[in-house]
């Protein structure tokens, strides 16, 4: 460097300028993404060939598909030796695939309505940034409405259940000033009292404001998968939070209860828990009591999922810098406030991918109930449909349809969670 270069004074500061306009064009995109090197070009060509072969192989099967036919043999006659799918099984058994084979045909509108309401009522929770908070009342009411629509019976069953919960919540709020532990017990007792009192009134009200009742064993089809999935995932998140917080607790008894629960449930296969729900639980209940099978399954799957979600949330809690806890403490927030406003919102945000992972896995695992002779969509396919003389042998179309249903749901959940993560991003905007 010469002497003259070392002394320099900038006369004017450069203004901010826009980045150079990106080169555009299809050719550039192709060159950069598909043919950037000989190896990549080769990979591209091989991939195109594989995709081409797949299309060629499956196209006739899809193009020649038969959508209307009373049975597989009729279907084969129509195809007349050509390759073709027999989607007629889907149109023919559509209702059975969705609602099971015993749900009264005239009442299909009820689970259908419950399904539509699910989207309406979940929206305030899912899009909480855009829908006013007060609409969350709908979300809170949904479980009771959905129960009434699907199972039918008198409206007072879900109504009294709701009443008990409200009473419990009210007592909890009113006793909270004394101590949190006491408030939980008091709230729980209040709810129990209301349920006990109203259970005597239920018998007289059996036919007032009643929909035609449908017993649990008549439910089936994809409806069961959706019901189990939605119920168990939404229940397991709050339980998972409690378990994760309990595991971090400084009180040894609470901590050890949570640790033992989580480790035990995680160490046992879900299918074992389902068998326990189906068979073993019956031995422990007093003789004569019938405890609804779906309820038993919901309890087991929820326990299973909450153990996993607890561990995911524990990861989120551990990922928070200690300074966040200290800042919340130093402002005088108590434990519940610092958890509610500072720690959990951040820990949950970190945990979203993990929770979604558990949720998607759990939703697919609901098909395991077919093993304990419940007729969910897989149970329907393997049982009544494939066993019937008309449709014996139609595998690809049926299981393909089940796969598509699950894919749509799981892909939807995944897309929503990614959107949510972007919404909650607060840095570098």
């Amino acid at each position, binding site marked *: 460097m010469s002497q003259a270069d070392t002394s320099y004074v900038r006369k004017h500061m450069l203004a901010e300028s826009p980045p150079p306009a990106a080169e555009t064009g299809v050719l550039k995109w192709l060159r950069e993404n598909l043919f950037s090197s000989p190896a990549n070009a080769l990979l591209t060509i091989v991939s195109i060939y594989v995709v081409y072969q797949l299309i060629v192989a499956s196209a006739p099967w899809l193009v020649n598909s038969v959508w209307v036919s009373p049975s597989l043999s009729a279907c084969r006659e129509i195809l007349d030796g050509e390759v073709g799918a027999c989607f007629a099984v889907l149109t023919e058994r559509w209702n059975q695939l969705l609602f099971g084979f015993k749900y009264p045909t005239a009442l299909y509108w009820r689970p259908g309505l419950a399904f539509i309401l699910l989207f309406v009522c979940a929206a305030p929770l899912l899009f909480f940034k855009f829908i006013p908070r007060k609409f969350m009342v709908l979300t809170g009411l949904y479980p009771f409405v959905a129960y009434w629509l699907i199972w039918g019976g008198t409206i007072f069953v879900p109504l009294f259940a709701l009443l008990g919960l409200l009473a419990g919540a009210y007592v909890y709020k009113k006793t909270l000033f004394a101590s949190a532990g006491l408030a939980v017990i008091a709230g729980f007792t209040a709810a129990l009292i209301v349920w006990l009192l109203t259970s005597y009134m239920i018998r007289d009200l059996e036919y007032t404001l009643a929909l035609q009742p449908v017993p649990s064993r008549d439910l089936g089809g994809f409806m069961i998968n959706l019901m189990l999935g939605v119920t168990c995932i939404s229940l397991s998140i709050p339980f998972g939070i409690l378990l994760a917080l309990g595991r971090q607790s400084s009180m040894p008894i609470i901590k050890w209860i949570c640790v033992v629960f989580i480790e035990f449930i995680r160490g046992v296969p879900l299918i074992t828990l389902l068998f326990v729900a189906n068979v073993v639980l019956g031995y422990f209940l007093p003789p004569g009591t019938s405890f609804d099978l779906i309820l038993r399954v919901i309890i087991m799957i929820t326990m299973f999922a909450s153990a996993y979600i607890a561990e995911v949330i524990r990861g989120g809690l551990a990922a928070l810098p200690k300074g966040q806890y200290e800042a919340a*403490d*130093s402002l*005088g927030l*108590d434990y519940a406030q610092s958890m509610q406003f500072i720690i959990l919102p951040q820990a949950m945000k970190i945990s979203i991918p993990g929770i979604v992972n558990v949720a998607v896995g759990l939703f697919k695992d609901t098909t395991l109930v077919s093993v304990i002779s419940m007729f969910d969509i897989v149970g329907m396919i393997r049982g009544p449909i494939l066993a019937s003389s008309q449709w014996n042998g139609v595998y690809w179309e049926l299981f393909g349809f089940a796969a598509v249903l699950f894919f749509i749901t799981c892909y939807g959940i995944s897309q929503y969670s990614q959107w949510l993560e972007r919404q909650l991003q607060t840095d*570098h905007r």
Partner: protein
Amino acid sequence: MAAVNQPEVSDKVAVEIRKMNKWFGTFHVLRDIDLTVYQGERIVIAGPSGSGKSTLIRCINALEEHQKGSITVDGTLLSNDVKNIDRIRSEVGMVFQHFNLFPHLTILENCTLAPIWVRKTPKREAEDTAMHFLTKVKIPEQADKYPGQLSGGQQQRVAIARSLCMKPRIMLFDEPTSALDPEMISEVLDTMIELAEEGMTMCCVTHEMGFARKVANRVIFMDEGQIVEQNEPEEFFNNPKSERTKMFLSQILGH
């Protein structure tokens, strides 16, 4: 450096620490600490790293638990009772080295959360107070942004405003400028000087000796978990008594 106008120190005690000892496991971090802070006093605590100065002020609002001795804050003896601790914490503001703002809340929400939920202040009033203090630290225009969008100096000033919104009687500063770029240190120090001029009781752990000279009524030098020397800033810097203090000062003022 011109001395700032120094408000009167009252004879009322703000913090009283008696024979306080603390251990981390078997490591004896604080040994027989005796310290009385009067209302309106500005104390700077200096010392080499690992000398226990941060731990000392973190004991005052019970972020660290002490094992022996007593701490009385604003007339309330610090005990293990959770409600007692929460009450003391709401009277004592704390500013951290790494700001510790809540990244998921806007600046305004950061400042109003504790007043609304701890002090039960109505939301509107809490927001007015927050805007008042944000104006005071000269960043009212950032109220609707998130902490991640602000510079380090701005974040630290928000952290100071957040503490002030609780109308604390004592402010603790734990190395408030150590994580900042050199250009941003002075904006935070200016805010702290302004606060001192208004008579806030302050305990600052800091390496900013210029700030200590200008603002403090007392400088405390700690080493190996004990108070080695304390004096008025003039005496402390010009005429240190202990060998350890002389060595420390020669090292940090040597350049």
